[in-house]
């Protein structure tokens, strides 16, 4: 089993690197092409959120196992301003940054497990998991 890796997110280039790394890991886990694309897209959204709203952060990429099933778990963390109203942030089309407002809510649909912890002034921690079928 590969060890978890931590990648920094400090610029647009890092978002590209995160995406590439997640894609390689997704292939290792044995995700289907559709699921690979989904988890890579979710990683792209969440990494960009960390960059745009918190000015940067990092992501931990690990391969997890649940019985016979393998999965890919991504943990995004930042020390940004945090999300004041999580429920509203997860509404489709809601944005404070001029985007489409689908990044966070869409990412939740792209993965199997989605966990969001955030409070104003305490940064944001998002853990997502995609299981191989």
């Amino acid at each position: 089993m590969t060890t978890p890796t931590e990648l920094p997110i400090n610029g647009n280039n890092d978002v590209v690197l995160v995406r590439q790394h997640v894609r390689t890991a997704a292939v290792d886990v044995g995700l289907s092409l559709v699921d690979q694309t989904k988890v890579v897209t979710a990683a792209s959204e969440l990494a960009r959120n960390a960059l745009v709203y918190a000015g940067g952060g990092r992501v931990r990429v690990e391969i997890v196992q649940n019985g016979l099933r393998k999965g890919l778990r991504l943990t995004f963390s930042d020390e940004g301003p945090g999300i004041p109203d999580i429920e509203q942030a997860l509404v489709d089309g809601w944005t404070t940054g001029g985007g489409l407002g689908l990044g966070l809510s869409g990412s939740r649909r792209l993965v199997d497990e989605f966990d969001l912890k955030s409070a104003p002034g305490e940064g944001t921690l998002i853990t997502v998991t995609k299981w191989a079928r």
Partner: protein
Amino acid sequence: MGVTLSVPADAGRRRIEQLLQDNEERVLRRWQEIAGSSSTGNVDRADLAAQLRELFQALLQSLGEGGDSSDLRGLLAELSRNRARQGFTPSETAIVVFGLKEAVYEFIETDGSPEALRGFVWFSQLIDDLGLFTIENYSAAREKVIVDQAEQLLELSTPVVKLWEGIVAVPLVGTLDSARTQVVMEKLLQTLVDTGSEHAVIDITGVPAVDTQVAQHLLKTVVAARLMGAECVISGIRPQIAHTIVTLGIEFGDIVTKASLADALAHALRESGVEFVSRRTRVAVRTEEG
């Protein structure tokens, strides 16, 4: 050790200079051996030997002229720039400089005097400085190469091609960030004006993932083209991309999307009133007539 430290620094320095001058040829030959053996096969031995001889002369000169090392640094900068461009690793580049330390140390050992040992500490620092200087130049040259390539890539990866009279296409390959979208949009809009085209095909077959940012950039480009009176078709939507777009909840509205570039071209041709008749049918018709 107490003996060694009681030797004045400049006495040690003078001893090293003396040693280097007395054993000039031998130190140089040893240095060439060390540097040559640590480099991989793709280095020209004769070339390296000549470079080292030049460096060594410059080093001796800088020692003699009371520390003016601008010549030496100039040569080192050139060497590291060349090595960075030729794809040498940082270690392979640094070892050229650090190899001299090893070469000189062998002569210090034979000499064995406290002055020489004291001097070697000074010499060691000098070589470390030069080594760091080399590495700094090496990475500066590497960064320059990367920046140049990124610029070239931006130019290369956004061609706008004419498919038919009145139909242009933009095949997008790779990551679509704000900077690239800007270039793509400008180029596309300019080409629409230049060619008087009314149809544009944006092909995303080469875009590995379409996230909300990419989608937003695409939508903006399409809207901008529409403002200029041109209709855009987005093609190259692969199954996994379609899946992802739907799950994300992105809506392309009334923008025409196609699975392949061929479909998009067929659509644009139909829209502009061009019809195709397959040749075989025509031959068949003729036979009937005959």
